[in-house]
């Protein structure tokens, strides 16, 4: 045998041994660690300050590491969380008392002064918080554990605001952090919540890691949504970013991850065939498709033309294009989200059927002069790219002159902020999706703000009547009163076509059956979840 042959044979043997040894090594280190939950969330975490942005993923990150003074349960009741509260007989003074055992992640005790600073930072950004501070005579720490809020006029929604579940939730932070400007990102991530943020392992757009807060003292009452006992049953939770949906499915099937928060609808059948996978919607409030018109410029500055446009749109077409399977969506006219305490279909009747002929007649009667309707069409976000196409087709059928402009989502986001006419880079209509939890009351539903150019959400309706409804809701003392105001407000908003709800759908979460305790909640919650 020649020397070169010996060398070749040795090389081949070494290669084969190396290959075999690769397979003898554990396939995936995760299998050795049963106390880590690996989840692919609906979007990557990049911004970690929950008061800086309204991004849902940042809000969810907030719930991992921060706690709130009050929580909301599945019956929309506000319950004590970090604090219990009392209201004076004249309904002007709220007193919040912190419960025992609350500590920040750095070991320091939670004080009332910390919470006052946190409320102030939150209120600088949040609409309901602003209303409270505008009506506050004093907000102060009257002892280490007592926060006192004195109002100029009674406000029935104070507990509701401090226990609100979605953007912006009033998360509590240590005073030194809460004193950061609300427009500047915090750089320290110290909360008092059930998980600690592992900043050293954070890679924006790649993964975020949380570990159990061993010092957290859970409440003793039953867990429900953001209230009650938050017991952590695992050591770590890793949020893994996986941009490709096919890869997510493959990783879940192979056990490399435990959970997908938002499973693509078209890939659900692949998972349904596997007995180890559970698929279910955990968000009882779902998400709504919303069409928004620009009130500043023709043709939608005229209510008759807005009405004709709404008449042309029907929810089923939008839901079929986006979701496909009717098992996962529902026709829903409730501006405050179906399944919420304020849900009603009043005013939405025309959205449940095709009315193209009626829309054509209404458009003719409105005096529409053929002004182009510029619709912003984001083509790079799967969940947002179907609505403009459907709308364009329906509006064209009704007789509108539609200019559908294809853009990437970030361009849409910056362009929709432009108040210029459509011919100068503005727009007439765009579509988005709201989580139901951000719609559930007149105070949190930003589509219903009527403060015009300087205070309303994109589209900028200037409608004092809307503000009167919101004000009345804020002052209302009983649930019945609130329901009545919300119903009247919705009827009015549909009449004026403040915006067009285009159906509600349920995002489907999927997880391996080794995971138990996956809770139903508008927010993905990792406490009380365990892994076999």
């Amino acid at each position: 045998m020649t020397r070169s042959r010996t060398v070749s044979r040795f090389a081949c043997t070494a290669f084969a041994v190396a290959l075999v040894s690769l397979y003898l090594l554990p396939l995936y280190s995760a299998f050795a660690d049963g106390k880590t939950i690996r989840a692919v969330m609906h979007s990557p975490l990049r911004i970690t300050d929950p008061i800086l942005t309204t991004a849902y993923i940042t809000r969810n990150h907030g719930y991992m590491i921060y706690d709130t003074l009050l929580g909301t349960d599945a019956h929309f009741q506000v319950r004590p969380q970090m604090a219990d509260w009392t209201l004076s007989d004249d309904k002007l003074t709220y007193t919040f008392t912190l419960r025992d055992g609350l500590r920040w992640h750095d070991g320091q005790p939670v004080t009332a002064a910390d919470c006052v600073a946190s409320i102030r930072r939150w209120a600088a950004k949040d609409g309901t918080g602003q209303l409270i501070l505008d009506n506050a005579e004093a907000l102060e720490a009257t002892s280490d554990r007592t926060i006192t809020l004195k109002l100029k006029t009674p406000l029935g929604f104070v507990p509701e605001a401090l226990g609100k579940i979605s953007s912006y939730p009033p998360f509590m932070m240590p005073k030194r952090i809460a004193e950061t400007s609300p427009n500047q990102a915090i750089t320290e991530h110290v909360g008092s919540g059930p998980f600690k943020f592992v900043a050293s392992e954070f890679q924006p757009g790649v993964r975020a890691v949380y570990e159990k807060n061993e010092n957290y003292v859970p409440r003793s009452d039953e867990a429900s949504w953001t209230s009650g006992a938050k017991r952590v049953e695992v050591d770590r939770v890793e949020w893994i970013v996986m941009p490709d949906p096919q890869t997510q499915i493959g990783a879940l099937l192979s056990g490399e991850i435990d959970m997908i928060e938002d499973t693509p609808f078209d890939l659900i059948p692949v998972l349904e065939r596997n007995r180890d996978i559970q698929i279910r919607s955990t968000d009882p409030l779902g998400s709504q498709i919303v069409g928004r018109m620009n009130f500043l410029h023709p043709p939608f500055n005229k209510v008759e033309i807005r009405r004709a446009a709404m008449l042309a749109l029907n929810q089923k077409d939008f839901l079929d294009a986006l979701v496909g399977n009717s098992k996962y969506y529902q026709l829903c006219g409730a501006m405050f989200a179906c399944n919420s305490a304020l849900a009603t279909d009043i005013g939405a009747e025309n959205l449940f059927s095709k009315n193209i002929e009626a829309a054509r007649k209404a458009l003719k009667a409105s005096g529409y002069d053929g002004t182009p309707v510029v619709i912003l069409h984001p083509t790079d976000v799967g969940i947002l790219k179907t609505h403009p196409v459907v709308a364009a087709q329906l509006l064209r059928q009704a007789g509108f002159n539609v200019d559908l402009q294809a853009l990437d989502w970030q361009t849409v986001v910056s362009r929709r902020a432009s108040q210029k006419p459509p011919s100068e880079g503005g727009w007439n209509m765009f579509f988005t999706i709201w989580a139901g939890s951000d719609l559930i009351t007149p105070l949190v539903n930003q589509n219903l703000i009527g403060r015009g150019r300087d205070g309303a959400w994109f589209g900028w309706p200037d409608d004092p009547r809307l503000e009167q409804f919101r004000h009345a809701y804020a002052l209302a003392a009983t649930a019945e009163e609130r329901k009545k105001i919300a119903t009247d407000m919705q009827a009015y908003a549909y009449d004026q076509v403040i915006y067009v709800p285009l159906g509600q759908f349920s995002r489907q979460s999927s997880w391996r059956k080794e995971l138990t305790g996956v809770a139903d909640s508008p927010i993905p919650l990792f406490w009380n979840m365990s892994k076999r």
Partner: protein
Amino acid sequence: MALPYLIRRLLAVFPVMLFVVLFVFLLLRLAPGDPAAVLAGDSATPAQLEQVRQALGLDRSVLTQFGLWISQLAKGDLGVSLISGLPVARIIGQRLEPTLWLTVLTMLFSSAAAIPLGVIAAWKHNKPADRVITFATVLGFSVPFFVIGYVLMLVLAIGLGWLPVQGYRSPAAGLGGFLRHQILPVLTLSVPLIALIARITRASMLEVLGSDYVRTARAKGLRESVVLCRHALRTASLPILTVIGNGFALLIGGAIVTESIFNLPGIGRLTVDAVLARDYPVIQGIILLTSGFYVLLNLLVDLAYVLLDPRVRYE
């Protein structure tokens, strides 16, 4: 090799990179989009959006922003991400390792597979082996990265369960895990590169094998392997080396897709994310890094010519 030439080439790197960063800086500011909108979130009011814009310094003139960035750069500071608030150097540093390993392993594997294939195809010119290799290279070059990636994933990871579907393990955490996570992405990225290098090798070898000195070598009774590898391949290697150098550009493009499919937290994915979020400092940092890398790589290829071909001289 003339030292002045080397110094001249190294000094030329700086104006090239300066031009690139200036161009990219202006291009980014001209492109539509607003990082403040990303930061403020979907339900921010116009007033809140403006506050965020001011906090980020985006309300300043482009010239002022450029001046600030260049002065930071002069101090070796790439700035901070507008979105995450983390230092750009740290973000890029975290993402560099997976891409470096992916490109280096792909290049090594591709070269090791493609050069022998090209040599065999040229040696067996117009015979069945040549035809099979030529057909395979055409196929390999025509199939998109994502098709190759999904097929490999479906068969080897999901179907057979031999390899992990996704993810990255650092070699520091164990060589076995590292290699297992590299196999699918490297194979995916290698297919078109093998096709490219094999075709160039074949063409270059065919030209050389017809030369008089090869005929002379054969007439002297040298073994065919010696004629092919020691005499012909060395002369044919200049175009191959050029293609390998340029192949890194192909790899960076392919890495964006491959990193997404196999969930590798590399520079390719970071670039896409930063562009979509209009995270200007991160995009500028990446461009600076990659342009510097390309310029240096081209320099290395030029220098390697001298080693491989004694006829090449730089004055």
